[in-house]
């Protein structure tokens, strides 16, 4: 019975009850739902159910295979971590929105056709925006609106692409689409917006850091990784994705170095990590796809962990800005330790989760002979250690002592962080269970002498560069600032261009109306001269003169007749 229920609807429907519960009961209930979800997934057999015909197309509500199951599991795990982290937060609005958001992402993961995918895609987008708004600040309100607009563009593109695709192929089934297929470009762009492709990425760095302490942890896991899943399903082996992915890994790290808000730094590094997955999807070999999706799996956990540690810092100190923090290790030792585990995992240190997943992508890129992408990914690997592995823990917990002595994070937060940190290490030390879940059989051994030593060389030397730059004072200090990114185009430039057009239009309108008025005035003046009280055409004539003229005309016509 439970096996035949659409997995996403479990949470979406369950969210309805959240406002009617209170306190610990409410939190326990929100924890129970994803746990039930995991239980349900364990009962799933490969196949599909929930078929129906709409608009003359065969829809499949739930399609179960290894790829959708993997993302289903990790989405539920992320939900469990997020719910534990938010246990203390008794905001029914945020709690129910988060459940709908998770449910929508899971529903989309199991969608077997583009119409069902679109439905859940949009629901996840709207829920994400509400989750940003749940912070209830002015900044979150505006950032949420910007996200909403961009998400809607993604939805429209997906629907248009799906319509073109269905029209050409006669089917809405969501399988490999490819760029050549009609509507393929639209669908790729729709996925690309949610996957934060370069120049389509700014909603991520804009919106996520404005959500609440707990909201960001949920947000970090779902929207972008759903897009990675969709790309892996629809566009595996699309070569352009390699280059897009490579660009994504490289350019956010420059921003991550100079950004001050540490949660925004994490958003940039999230973008960088997505690049690795996109490049893997672009390569498209079985090793690369295994690498991309397993990296998504590991990434969701360590990224949630990093956002949790910065959330705990924000919760206790009221700020996540590098310029205001430092020295927190003295009173928040557990959070510090968990942050370092998250940092080591994202940096792909041996024995941590990133090591056993990212290396598959790098190996696949090398094996296919892509030299420049390989070098850029290597650069990005060193860079990610630099800003996520070192900068985040260093400026928050060490560096100069800010004098802040906050209490250690609450127990529920520590529990969530501890669980996530445990998973990061467990996957790194013993990757076999994760490898068994991957869509293709794994013939890959991460722990070879060559791989361990070369990785350590890359990372430790990168750490030495950081230490040297710090010692010599060359490292740019954390400063209160805004760093301009592509959102400059729509937050500053576009409003000004539109303002200029409006002002110029206004001036033109005024000039035009003034000209027209002048013409009208002249016309009326002229008419007045002829038709006015003294005008020649408005003079009154005696009736007798009319009769005389009439008689004269009649006499004239008589004369002509003869």
């Amino acid at each position, binding site marked *: 019975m439970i096996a035949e229920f659409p997995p996403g609807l479990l949470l979406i429907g369950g969210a309805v009850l959240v406002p009617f519960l209170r306190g610990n009961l409410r939190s326990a209930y929100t924890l129970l739902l994803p746990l039930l979800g995991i239980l349900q997934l364990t009962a799933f057999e490969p196949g599909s159910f929930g078929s129906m015909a709409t608009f003359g197309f065969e829809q499949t509500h739930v399609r179960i295979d290894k790829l959708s199951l993997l993302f289903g599991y990790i989405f539920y795990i992320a939900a469990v971590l997020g719910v534990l982290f938010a246990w203390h937060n008794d905001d029914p609005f945020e709690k129910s929105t988060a459940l709908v958001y998770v449910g929508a992402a899971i529903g989309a993961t199991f969608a077997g056709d583009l119409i069902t995918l679109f439905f859940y895609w949009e629901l996840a987008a709207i829920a994400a925006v509400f989750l940003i708004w749940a912070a209830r600040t*002015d900044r979150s309100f505006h950032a949420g609106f910007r996200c909403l607009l961009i998400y809607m563009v993604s939805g429209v593109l997906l629907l248009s692409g799906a319509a073109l695709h269905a029209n050409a192929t006669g089917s809405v089934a969501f399988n490999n689409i490819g760029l050549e297929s009609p509507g393929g470009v639209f669908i790729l762009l729709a996925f690309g917006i949610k996957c934060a492709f370069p120049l389509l990425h700014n909603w991520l760095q804009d919106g996520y850091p404005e959500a609440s302490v707990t909201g960001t942890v949920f947000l970090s896991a779902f929207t972008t990784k759903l897009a990675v899943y969709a790309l892996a399903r629809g566009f595996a082996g699309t070569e352009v994705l390699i280059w897009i992915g490579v660009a994504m890994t490289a350019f956010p790290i420059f921003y991550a170095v100079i950004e001050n808000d540490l949660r925004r730094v994490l958003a940039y590094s999230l973008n960088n990590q997505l690049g690795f997955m996109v490049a893997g999807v672009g390569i498209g070999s079985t090793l690369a796809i295994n690498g991309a999706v397993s990296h998504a799996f590991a990434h969701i956990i360590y990224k949630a962990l990093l956002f949790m540690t910065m959330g705990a810092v924000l919760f206790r100190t*009221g700020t996540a800005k590098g310029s205001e923090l430092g020295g927190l290790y003295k009173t928040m030792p557990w959070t510090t330790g968990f942050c370092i585990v998250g940092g080591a995992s994202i940096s792909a240190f041996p024995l941590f989760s990133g090591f056993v997943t990212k290396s598959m992508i790098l190996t696949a890129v090398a094996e296919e002979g892509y030299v420049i992408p390989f070098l850029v990914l290597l650069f990005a690997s060193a860079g990610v250690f630099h800003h996520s592995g070192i900068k985040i823990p260093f400026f928050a917990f060490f560096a100069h002592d800010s004098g802040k002595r906050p209490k250690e994070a609450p127990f529920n937060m520590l529990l969530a962080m501890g669980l996530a940190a445990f998973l990061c290490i467990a996957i790194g030390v013993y990757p076999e269970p994760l490898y068994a879940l991957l869509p293709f059989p794994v013939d890959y051994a991460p722990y070879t002498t*060559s791989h361990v030593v070369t990785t350590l060389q890359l990372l430790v030397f990168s750490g*030495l*560069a950081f*230490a040297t730059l710090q010692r010599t004072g060359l490292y740019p200090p954390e400063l209160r600032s*805004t760093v301009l990114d592509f959102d400059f185009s729509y*937050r500053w430039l576009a409003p000004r261009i539109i303002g200029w057009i409006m002002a110029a239009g206004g001036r033109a309108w005024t000039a035009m109306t003034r000209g027209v008025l002048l013409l009208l005035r002249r016309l009326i003046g002229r008419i007045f001269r002829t038709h006015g009280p003294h005008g020649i055409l408005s003079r009154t004539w005696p009736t007798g003169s009319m009769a005389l003229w009439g008689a004269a005309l009649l006499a004239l016509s008589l004369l002509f007749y003869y």
Partner: protein
Amino acid sequence: MTKAYPNDHAPEKDGDKRYWLDNMRNVYKLFWALVVLCGLLLFSDAFYKKHVVFEFEHWFGFFGLFGFFVSFALVLTARELRKILMRGEDYYDR
């Protein structure tokens, strides 16, 4: 409008406590330990066979030196980018 966060401070009892890292000499010790570790890792290249794909990966110490120089370049480039990209904190709110 910013939201209020619980700004709980632990008692000041450890305000006077000196931590190991508070002593700059210990920080320097860590730095030199890192230098030694790098040296060891660099020379370990002589003692194993690399299983890599590209020719340049076989160069002695390639990964270490690559990691050091690109990180250095990354930070210095980002520092210069600040001159173009950095604005006041309330830039978009004005």
